[in-house]
């Protein structure tokens, strides 16, 4: 069956990977070949080993991350194995899912705590109230004297 080998540099958690031009190879399943973790037998090609890290099996319409463990067999053959990229393989359905998003790169409520780490230091800003009535001056009227009676004070 046909396998398209790619070299990708996207984050594995990216739903839709950017794929370049594929290298198309004809392969055979190796031993008992799992669909989710396939092992593929193909003619030895060092460019696959050197350049590719991702492949797609059109017949199964599934994308795979290529395992580093490529095994070379006698007779000019090699076995390439991989595991399914469930995101890319089901990208169209995933993109159509209705979900609640709690963390987002671009949609932000800035007043929700993002737990951005704070340094130990603190800023300390002091703002004085504009009026200060507590300015004692002997020449002003800072004293009160309470006396009994004293009702005849009126001039």
């Amino acid at each position, binding site marked *: 069956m046909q396998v398209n080998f790619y070299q990708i540099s996207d984050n594995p958690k990216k739903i839709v990977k950017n794929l370049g031009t594929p290298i198309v190879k004809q392969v055979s399943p190796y031993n008992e070949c799992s669909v989710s973790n396939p092992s593929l037998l193909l003619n030895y090609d060092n460019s696959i080993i050197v350049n590719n890290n991702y492949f797609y099996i059109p017949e199964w319409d599934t994308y795979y991350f290529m395992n580093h463990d490529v095994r070379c067999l006698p007779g000019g053959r090699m076995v390439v194995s991989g595991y399914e990229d469930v*995101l890319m393989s089901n990208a169209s359905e995933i993109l159509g899912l209705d979900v609640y998003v709690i*963390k987002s790169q671009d949609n932000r409520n800035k*007043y929700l705590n993002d737990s951005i780490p704070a340094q130990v230091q603190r800023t300390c800003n002091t703002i004085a109230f504009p009026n200060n009535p507590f300015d004692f001056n*002997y020449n002003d009227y800072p004293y009160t004297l309470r*006396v009994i009676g*004293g009702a005849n*004070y*009126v001039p």
Partner: protein
Amino acid sequence: MNINNLFPQYSSTGNNGSLKYTDRIPLIPITNYPFPDSYYLGYMKYWFNWQKTTQATHNIDTGEIIFTDITDYDEYPSLGYYLNGGLSIDIPSNYFYDESQTTPHYVNSILSDSYSNYLVNNFHPQATSMRSLFLRFAFLGYSTNGNGIPQNEISLNISQFLSFLNGNLSLTITNTWTGTQYTLSRNDFTNDCYYEIDSTHRIILCDGYFSSTGYYDDNNTLYNSLLKIFSQSNYKILDTSLKCISSGEYISPSSSSGICTLRYNGSAYIYYNRYAKNIANNDTTGGVITSPIIGHVAGRIKLSDLSYDGAFALCDEDITSQTYASTYYSAGEYLIKVFWNYTFDEIYKSASVYRWTTSDVYGFSDEVVYYPTFNPDDMNEFTLGLQTGTQSELESLLPLWYRLDNAQASEYTDSSKPSPEDEDDTDPEPDIETGVIVSNNFSRPFSIANQFVTTYVMTGAQLSNLGRILWTSFNDDTVTMDMVENFWANVQQATGTWDISAVMNFIISLTMFPFDVTNLLTSTSLQSASELFLGTGKLGLDIKGTNNLYVANYAVGIADLGTVSIPETYGDYRDYVNTVISVYLPYCGTVQLNPSDVVGKSISCKYAIDINSGECTAFLILVDNNVERYNLAIEKGMCGFSIPITSTNSAQVKTRLENNMLKSGSAMLSMLQGGLNVFETALNGDAFDIGGSVLGFQQSRISSKMLENSFLSQSGIGCNYISGATGFSDLACPSTAYVQIKRGIYSKPMHYKSTVGYSTNAKEYGKISNFSGYIECVNADVSGMTCTEEEKSKIKSLLESGVYV
């Protein structure tokens, strides 16, 4: 809505006229088609800051306005124009040209390359003073991708574009004359406003500004470069007015201190100063006017060179009653308004229908000038200076920005999401602080005017006089021997005894405050007194001296310490988390406040002070939108200090007074005076000195046999802080109330949003394809997918741990 708020406020003083961006257009999505057949695209405004005789002439044919007879321009040097609104320039899409390189770059590649610096060559900065470059981009965003949802496609592009502006862009401009490079630092761009024309078209406004030193765009080089930078796929820049100031001919080449600020906000901004060229002297090259010349021209603008494909009208606030004359240009503001009479589809088509006119009577047609004479400060109540017109026509003259600001958001119609009515757990409306809750009684209702007790308010000198009379010290002009003798004669008559204890028993308390008590009380709360009377009306003491003596009618005085604002620092949750806000209240202590209560608001502080007991009550009141809402805290304290002068031993003292002072005792007098001086010194000093001096008095008392039997009671030596809980150490504390805000210093890690993501609204619900970049989902429902259960489980786990869209 004040139309001026739509634009950054301009300061003609300080910082060489840098723009101050003080307000932003609120985010108001609009779905109603905003344009009638005839509509307003913007306005042009020019203003005069000088206040002396000003004249201007205009030339209809050339479109020139020339201002003359501007005197004393050094004092009032400001004259400016700015023009807002704009039509289209059709920029080749998806094209980016880097002046510093020889090959074109596509915007998308720029976005992905973390482009950090853009070099604009062929730029002529001629001035070195501070400049600001305000940018407002009006984009026509439209969908070209039939595979996606048009609106989302536009939103995605906007998001990418803003990300590009905010995350990557800085501008470096080069003075090709000197080789000097200037870096324009970027300030945040936002797309605070857009309106939706239809499902595939939106006009988006993006605001932001750069500031730097020393640029002067005499050839529009910077602008042209910016056009190339900011033009990308799916956008057209709705703007022509940048062309309006294309020529340096009408912007004087400034000297090193000249002012020439350009504002690119989908529009032009021209600021003239005293360096404008001197037309009267046939100065065709421009330059610095080095001396004030009466009759010189401060500046001019040639409308025909504005290249603005619209109609211009010049009017003042009431054009219906004005004629076009030289005196028309007096101090004040005038508007040049620009209208466009085409359908929206023709916005970005050029036209050449503009007319300069002086008439105030026009009918509506496609090619005439309209004169809406609204006051720019009151957009809601403008009147139209037209004699004809219908309501719809009047409405058609509402400016675009007014429409944007007053439009209502459309109803939620996305059928792919559950409608709000389907929600069974809709949240109640959040608590909103409304109404005036504060009902503190600061009206001084506590009258103490009665016949039993009188509270005198006196100065330190008056208190000293009282002491002299009581303790018979008459060695200055204020207290004479006659006064002392008369007093004691009255004492003997009133009480039948010469015992001073009979006098002292009339005194209840003496309290010192760290402030002027008369400032605390209103004039109605105070009453002048001729003498200080003790007990009956016979025991009067003239202690006034050179000042008035007052009696307090109310027990409580109110001190208003004013209001302080608690600003946000970060503008997000960090202002509330890991933030400690405390308020220091003199004589009451420190109060800690909840940041969520006060950040972004103001706090008012008032003291209610009992002038009898010295007790004080501090009120911290939340002020929101200049309205006092409620008490954040009420704290009790003591700010009065008791100075006891009653005495259990006064009889002994009185005996000595009788024997030694009233009869002859000059030696005694001097010794007593020594003690009194200490007491007086204590009174004269500040609070610390009182304690220290009294301590000194105690020491002298110990060493002086005479003073062993002092007039001061054993229990009354020194000044006690009334509260008993605190002492004089409180006086070492600041006397000014203040707010202290302690915040953590946050260090946002690199690539935080693209690797961790920001928290979203709890109801951020929608299709994954509607989001971009990094997202984390909660409890993703994958049940509808056609893949295997194992795959679903993996997908669910991945979505919840974070994926990139």
